[in-house]
């Protein structure tokens, strides 16, 4: 019984983190899947969201900025707004150039933000991070607090999914696809390419910040390691590419699937003797990288390929053909 309860709690934790990753993957899907923008600094926007929300909600502390004790709704909104403004600035500089520049600039932004987190100890408590971050529903009795938090995450994923699906099928979404597939044609059709790109980039980054805010409250602690490019940027890319970019269901599936694989392998390797546990941790990263390469080369459309919107008259036989 005890064992079963422990497993149950483990699954709740797994699903909560998986749901947070699903938000990240959906955010990246707007940028890469729909708009064709390469964000290599997911970790930066994720960390900004985490810190903003944590600082706005924690009790006063001498070690870091805080004591505002705002409600969660305000801190979540603030996290998204701050990330959105920052994304706007990055987009203003880089979106007129090819994707490679955006990739370089976003990886740079993520690193700069890491430096700030480490150096501005008055605000962030430096490497020791912000602790005692409140968690929504934590006053509820034991399994219910975790379940309520999980429900909040999953409902958020569902709401974002519905909004994105609506957007994808709307004229806005069709313009996005047009820009990604053939920018000169979209421009010739009179679409303001720069504005649509900016919208895709900013909205994606705001979702990443929301995921960061959820993480801060879920873990009740946040440190500069939150912006680790491996777990915050790279893993999200693997999730989206494996699940199927430009497919929102694929992004969610990829997030839960890869997070389960990632956590399950960690569970396995942590039971090995110390020396081997450390070594296998690197093998795990290597294999995840290899999975990405194999999927990119052999199955570039992922598990759930993009579903193209075609006009109803042409629908039979015209679907399922994508330009990779």
């Amino acid at each position, binding site marked *: 019984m005890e064992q079963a309860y422990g497993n149950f709690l483990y699954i709740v934790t797994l699903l909560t983190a998986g749901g947070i990753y699903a938000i990240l993957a959906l955010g990246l899907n707007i940028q890469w899947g729909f708009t064709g923008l390469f964000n290599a600094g997911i970790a930066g926007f994720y960390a900004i969201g985490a810190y903003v929300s944590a600082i706005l909600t924690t009790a006063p502390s001498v070690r870091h900025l805080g004591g505002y004790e705002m409600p969660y709704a305000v801190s979540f909104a603030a996290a998204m707004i701050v990330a959105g403004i920052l994304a706007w600035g990055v987009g203003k*500089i880089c979106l007129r150039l090819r994707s490679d520049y955006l990739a*370089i600039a976003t990886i*740079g932004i993520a690193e700069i933000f890491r430096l700030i987190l480490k150096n501005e100890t008055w605000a962030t408590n430096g490497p020791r991070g912000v602790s005692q971050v409140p968690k929504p529903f934590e006053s509820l009795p034991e399994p219910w607090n975790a379940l309520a938090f999980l429900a909040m995450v999953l409902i958020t994923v569902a709401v974002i999914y519905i909004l994105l699906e609506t957007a994808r099928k709307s004229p806005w979404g069709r313009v996005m696809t047009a820009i990604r597939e053939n920018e000169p044609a979209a421009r010739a059709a009179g679409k303001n390419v720069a504005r649509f790109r900016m919208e895709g980039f900013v909205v994606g980054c705001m979702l990443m910040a929301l995921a960061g805010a959820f993480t801060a409250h879920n873990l009740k602690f946040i440190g500069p390691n939150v912006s680790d490019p491996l777990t915050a940027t790279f893993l999200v890319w693997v999730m989206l590419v494996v699940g199927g970019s430009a497919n929102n269901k694929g992004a969610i599936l990829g997030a839960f699937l890869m997070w389960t694989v990632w956590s399950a392998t960690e569970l396995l390797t942590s039971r090995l003797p110390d020396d081997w546990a450390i070594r296998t941790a690197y093998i795990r990263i290597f294999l*995840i990288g290899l999975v*990405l*390469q194999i999927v990119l*080369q052999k199955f570039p459309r992922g598990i759930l390929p993009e579903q193209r919107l075609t006009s109803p008259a042409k629908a039979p036989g015209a679907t399922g053909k994508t330009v990779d």
Partner: protein
Amino acid sequence: MMDIIGDLINFHLIPGIVLGSIYALGAIGLTLTFGILRFANFAHGEIMTLGAYFAWTLVQLTGWHPVAVMPIAMGLTVLVALGIDRGFYKPFRASPTIMLVIASFGMMLMVRSLVQLIWGVQIKTIMPGIQMPLVLFDWLRISPKHIIIVTSAVALMFAVHYLLTYTKIGKAMRAMSDSPELARLTGINTEAVIRATWIIGAALAAAAGALLALDTHIQTMMGFKLLLPVFAATILGGIGRPYGAVVGGLVIGLAEELSSYAWIGDTPLLNPGYKAGVAFAIMVAMLIWRPSGLFRGKVY
């Protein structure tokens, strides 16, 4: 007075030139791959790390000076880079280049995790012991290793200059960087050019890694930390412009070191913790002001 100037030169100007020549070596390779294969290679930093670890291992095995084993380390790194190209980049030759960016992004983590698996994450030194600096005119102090680093870097730069200017493959590389279609039409073997690009790029990256190891120490994250300044140097110099990369590398290296000098008052102008931010700031400024770089490189 001499003390103040000495302080500026000994602790900021000379380290800036040393760091700048290391950045320059990395940036030449990056700018060539960016110009010829047309993608931002995120794994370039890890190639530098690999070069440093090969050099370290060779020093342990032979007991020679790091610069003496450097050619072997460069050769080994070139073999790895060619293998990576064959297995992971070649399948995307006909695809949009962004696929190569993702592949290189994945490669960054694969190479790093292999280095961590094989060599461990502890910091290593390639030359144990402290060397006494040479003292000139009472105030100028130059460490022998700094002379070795700058001399080696300059020698390698001249070798690249010779290669690009006078050899057939070097001319073909420049032609392909300028216009891949025209190059193909004139019968240039593009696969041979791509191979040459990886050979030069990986060899210089390995040298940069080994020289940085000689200057400071070796750790598995060193390549990732080099990535941003080297990208900044590439963009500053202009993509596809090897001479621009040299200038860009030196400017970034000097700017990073001079930013922590106490220009006004007694405190450093910029908290040394933000040194890495200097390269980024210069890069952003270039992207706004002149994305083609100082040497009128390509803008995609």
